[in-house]
Structures are given as structure tokens and as C-alpha cells.
């Protein structure tokens, strides 16, 4: 059990930075998920925690100890690999006990603990088999068991579910959470799948192009994205990012969005006051846009053309074209809409997220 801290870490490969100036704190027992698109540096960050890569700059601490120069074998962390990395020449039992045998633990202890873990993971019948004779889910369990037997200070998981099919993935998500509840070991989990991140994490660290974008619990990451990239990455269907302009109506700033002029006040108003004429990007979640009659009072209403209707059973995703812009909306099921129809939609200005058009940073 330990805290993990990454302080000002940069990692360059042949002069190209894969990870840039990342600061990340993982509390003791926390389930931290690093998420981001491919090539964002998340795996490199994890490999620096495991000791496979050395930071070009900055400090990595595990349990308060600086581990920059500590080889993987002395870091006391366990890792689950994307492709499981079970040793093909060893049986499941030998794979599970590999680390304990390396550490020369007494045979009795090894046998007892392997049996206990195998029982917990439901892989006891597989102990005599070789990895080639296992299914993907079984291999994943063996890899998890091997990591658990390590009794590490921290778990590192590198996209452990990405090679499984959808049903098995959902089941393993549940099992991983259950295991973490049972053994609350500090965990750093890397994935590109926002569903895994949202459903499993205590906190999510979202990365892009080597930089940390935001660290927050799942729901806050969704409701309070710190920039347009975070807003766009989290959520499915994606958030609608619509260009808009800040104007002035008398003393009050207004946002000119689609065909609407939306007055802004409060904190955001004071920020936008100084941005007269500047471009901004407005983020509207699909569920924040609702169909409405032509004249709804109070809220902005825009008229558009239905381009695509995707009924999912529990809800319907409707793509609406408003002028040059596309809005994806999440409507209730059986909306009765048809492609080509004209539709009025409204949204609550309180819910819209305003980002700077250039930097993408959240303004309010």
C-alpha cells in the first residue's frame, strides 16, 4: 500500500517528448485511471511507474521513495499487461507462482496462496493447463492472479480488458472493481476506453499529446471539463462543440450562438465582458438538447433539419443540422422523427459550457 506521485515528469524518445511535464498524485488505495487517445503518453507514464522507462526529467515516487533509478524488480509493483504476458512454457500454476518462486518463498506458502487466489478467481480447474489452452478471459484472470500474488505496493494495469469481447469486458470491469474493493491496493489503470474509465475509476487522469488535461472524479470530469478536449473525449455520443461569438448588448455580454443571442451574467459574464468580438466554442451535451414546440418561453430555441435518426431502444440519437452546424441530440425513445423533417430544439443556457476558441480552455 502506497501513494504514487509523479512530479514534473517528462519523457522524450530521441528528442520527441511522449510525456510532457506531468504532475499526478495517486492516493493510497485509490483506483486511478489514466485515459486518453492512442499516443497520448498514458502507457509511457505507466511504464515509468513500472520502471521500464526512465523519466527524462522529473521525479517518480512510490510510497514516498524516489524510484527513478530503481529497477523494476525492486519497485514492489505488479503489472497486468494488455496481452497478458503469461509465460507460454509454464502451466497456469507455475505462472501464478512465478514471482513467489523467484522471491524464494517457502513451498508450503506458495501452494497455499496460489490455491487461495485460484479459488477466488475461479481458475482452480485451469491450474494444470498452459496459457495456449486458455480463452482470453481465463488468461486475463491468470494475469490478474499473478499480480495479486505479488502483494504489491501498487497495481499497474495496461489496457487489461482491450483484448476481450464486449460481454466479457463488462464482466471483468465488475470483477476488477470487486477485487479492488477486497484488496484496496493503490492502482493505476491505463485505458483508451472512456466507459472503463468512467465506470471503474475513483479518479480519472485524462491525457492528450503527452500532457495531463484534467484529473477529477468521473462525474466531475463529465460535468466540469476543464477544456474542450476533455469535454469532447468524455461522453458518448460526443458533446456538441459549436462555434459562437461574444458580443455586447448594452452593458451585458451576449453569446451569439446559431440563431440565438444568449445574455450572460454572473462569473462568466465578467469573464466575457472583456472578450467583445472574440470567438468561443460552446459545448452542449446531447442530453441537454430537447425537442420543443416552436415558441418555448425563456430558453433559446433553434430550428433545424433532422439528418439522421438512430433508435437504440432505450433512447434515440438524432442528428440535427442547424445552418452549417451539426447537433447530436439524445431524445427519448419512439420520438417519431423522420429524416428530413424540420424540428425545433431548445437547451438550457445554464448548462452550456463555454470554451476559449483558441486555447480550448473552459471559461465557464
Amino acid at each position, binding site marked *: 500500500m502506497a501513494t504514487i506521485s509523479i512530479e514534473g515528469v517528462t519523457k522524450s524518445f530521441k528528442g520527441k517528448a511522449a510525456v510532457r511535464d506531468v504532475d499526478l498524485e495517486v492516493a493510497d488505495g485509490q483506483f486511478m485511471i489514466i485515459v486518453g487517445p492512442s499516443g497520448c503518453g498514458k502507457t509511457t507514464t505507466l511504464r515509468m511507474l513500472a520502471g521500464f522507462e526512465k523519466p527524462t526529467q522529473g521525479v517518480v515516487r512510490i510510497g514516498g521513495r524516489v524510484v527513478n533509478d530503481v529497477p523494476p524488480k525492486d519497485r514492489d509493483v505488479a503489472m497486468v499487461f494488455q496481452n497478458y504476458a503469461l*509465460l507460454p512454457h509454464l502451466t497456469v500454476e507455475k505462472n501464478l507462482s512465478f514471482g513467489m518462486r523467484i522471491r524464494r518463498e517457502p513451498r508450503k506458502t506458495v501452494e497455499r496462496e496460489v490455491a487461495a487466489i485460484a479459488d477466488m478467481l475461479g481458475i482452480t480447474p485451469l491450474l494444470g493447463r498452459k496459457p495456449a489452452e486458455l480463452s482470453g478471459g481465463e488468461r486475463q484472470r491468470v494475469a490478474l492472479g499473478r499480480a495479486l500474488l505479488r502483494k504489491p505496493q501498487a497495481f499497474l494495469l495496461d489496457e487489461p480488458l482491450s483484448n476481450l469481447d464486449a460481454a466479457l469486458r463488462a464482466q471483468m470491469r465488475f470483477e476488477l472493481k470487486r477485487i479492488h474493493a477486497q484488496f484496496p491496493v493503490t492502482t493505476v489503470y491505463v485505458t483508451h476506453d472512456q466507459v472503463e474509465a468512467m465506470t471503474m475509476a475513483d479518479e480519472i487522469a485524462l491525457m492528450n499529446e503527452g500532457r495531463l488535461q484534467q484529473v477529477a472524479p468521473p462525474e466531475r470530469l463529465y460535468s466540469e471539463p476543464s477544456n474542450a478536449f476533455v469535454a469532447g473525449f468524455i461522453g458518448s455520443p460526443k458533446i456538441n462543440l459549436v462555434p459562437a461569438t461574444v458580443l455586447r448588448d448594452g452593458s451585458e455580454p451576449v453569446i451569439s450562438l446559431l440563431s440565438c443571442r444568449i445574455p450572460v451574467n454572473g462569473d462568466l459574464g465578467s469573464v466575457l465582458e472583456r472578450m467583445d468580438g472574440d470567438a468561443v466554442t460552446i459545448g452542449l451535451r446531447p442530453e441537454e438538447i430537447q425537442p420543443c414546440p416552436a415558441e418555448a418561453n425563456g430558453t433559446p430555441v433553434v430550428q433545424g433539419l433532422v439528418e439522421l435518426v438512430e433508435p437504440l431502444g432505450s433512447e434515440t440519437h438524432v442528428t440535427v443540422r442547424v445552418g452549417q452546424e451539426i447537433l447530436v441530440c439524445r431524445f427519448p425513445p419512439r420520438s417519431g422523427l423522420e429524416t428530413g423533417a424540420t424540428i425545433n430544439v431548445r437547451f438550457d443556457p445554464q448548462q452550456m459550457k463555454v470554451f476559449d476558441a483558441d486555447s480550448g480552455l473552459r471559461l465557464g
Partner: protein
Amino acid sequence: MTSTSLPGQVAGQDENAATADRPGGSGSRLADWRPGGRKLIVSAVMAVIGMAFLLPLVWLILAAFNPHATSGMSAPAFSFTNFRAAFQAGAGSAIANSFYLAGVSTIVATVVSTLAGYVLSRHYVPLKGPILVIVIFLTGLPVTLLLIPIYQMFVKINWLNSPFYTSLVLGATSVPFAIWLLKNFIDQVPRDFEEAAAVEGSGQFQILWRVVIPLIMPGILVSAILTFINSWGAFLIPLVLDSSPGDTPGAVGIYEFITANGQVQFGPLAAYGILFSVPVIIMYIISSRWLSGGFSFAGGIKG
């Protein structure tokens, strides 16, 4: 001739071959492709080449069992006289010496090449590219070129007439090829296995011993068998470096059957040849089994 248009047609239809929409299926495709006349010529050429290899072997077997063997084809007979003569002439100790030379050189060459192959495959080595080019170049270098300087070196450090030091040189001649072979095997081992072992607490040598070596075992065995066969048949190096009569290995010992005035005892020579070949034939059988058995990491990773 219709066959000239066929190759293109065959290539075009290759993807459809699985659907077997052509009459006769894939069996007839081969027949179409090689009309009767050409097939006959190919078979005839193959037969001639085959005979060239087979006839000496037939002679060897017939002569070995015929007490009155000559350089011509002997009549089939069944006598162990020649084998007895071969043993009396020292076949037993010569083969034992060959086992010693081949065994020691195999162990030395395999250990050295495995370590070198691992380092060249996995670690940062300055000038790795040029080193690998030199290694490949050395695979093709005739040992004869090196023999005179090696002999002089052996004279200087007083290593002559020692089977152990001779086997070191024999092993060294196999090292370049073995390094090249094993490095390629190690290159195929996914690094994830080693990283998994490392986080489990293995140090460098434990990773090598418990992960890499078991995974490249087929490669190590192939390399060891090739080294063994190479050293087993070595003639010039043991002849030059170890001239003490008791150390004569098999390939040199064959001279026992050729007398000073050019007379050859064909029967015992053939019997000796068979005795000397048996271990190598066994090795070939084992190695071919390992080679065809293949080399895979199935199940360990998926990706």
C-alpha cells in the same frame, strides 16, 4: 501453347480457389500447370541427382558388410569382419575423441552464443550494426585462413596437443553462426515476457534463465546440434592443433585405412564410415524434429 496463358489466369483466380468453382478443384491445377512432357523431364533430372547422392551411400553399406570389398560395387554380403577390423584400428577411441571435441565445443559455443545473442538482441551496444555485419561476415570466413596464426598462437602459449583447447577453437568456428541464429530467435521473443518477469522480481540472469532460454530452447538445440555436427566432422583443426596419437578424432582416424603407399582397405573404411556417421544421423533426425516442431509463443500473449 495454352499453358503460357495459364499462370496469369491461375493467379487471378487464386482468391476463388477456396470456393472450388473450377472443375477438378485444386488437384487439377497442378496438373494443368505442368504438362506431361515437362513433368517427365523434371523427374528424370531429379532421378539423376538422386542417384548421384544415393550410389555412394549404397556402396558404403554394401562394402561395409562385404569382407572382400573393393572400390567397385560389392555383391551383397553380411559379415561383421570389417567392423571388427575398424574397431581394431581404433574406431572406438577415435569416436570417443570426436564426442569429446564435439561435446566441449558445443557447450562452449552454445553458452557464449546465447549470452552474446541476448546482449546483441536486447541491450544497447555501441556500434551494434557494424558488429552484426562482422558476425555475419565471419560466418562465411573459411577457417583455413585462420589456422596458421592460430597454430602459431598455440605454439606460443603452449596449448598444442590438448583436446580441450582444440575444442575451444572448434567451438569458436561455430560461434558466429550460432550468435546470428540465436539473436534472431531472441528477437522474436516479445519483451512483455521479460518485463512481466522483471516486475515479478526477476533480475537480469533470472530473466535469461527462466524466461528467455526456455522460450528459445528450439533455437538453442538447433544451434547446438549444428555446432556438434560441424565439430564432429572437423578434420583440419584437430589434425593441425592436436597431433598426439591418442587424441585422434574420427575424421582424422579415417587415414588408418589408407596405407602409406596408397593402398586402401575399402571394407574397414566403409565400416568405419558407417560407425562414424551414426551419431550425426541421429542428431539430424532430432534437429529436424525440433525444426519442424516450430517455435511459437501461442497463448502467452495476444496482440
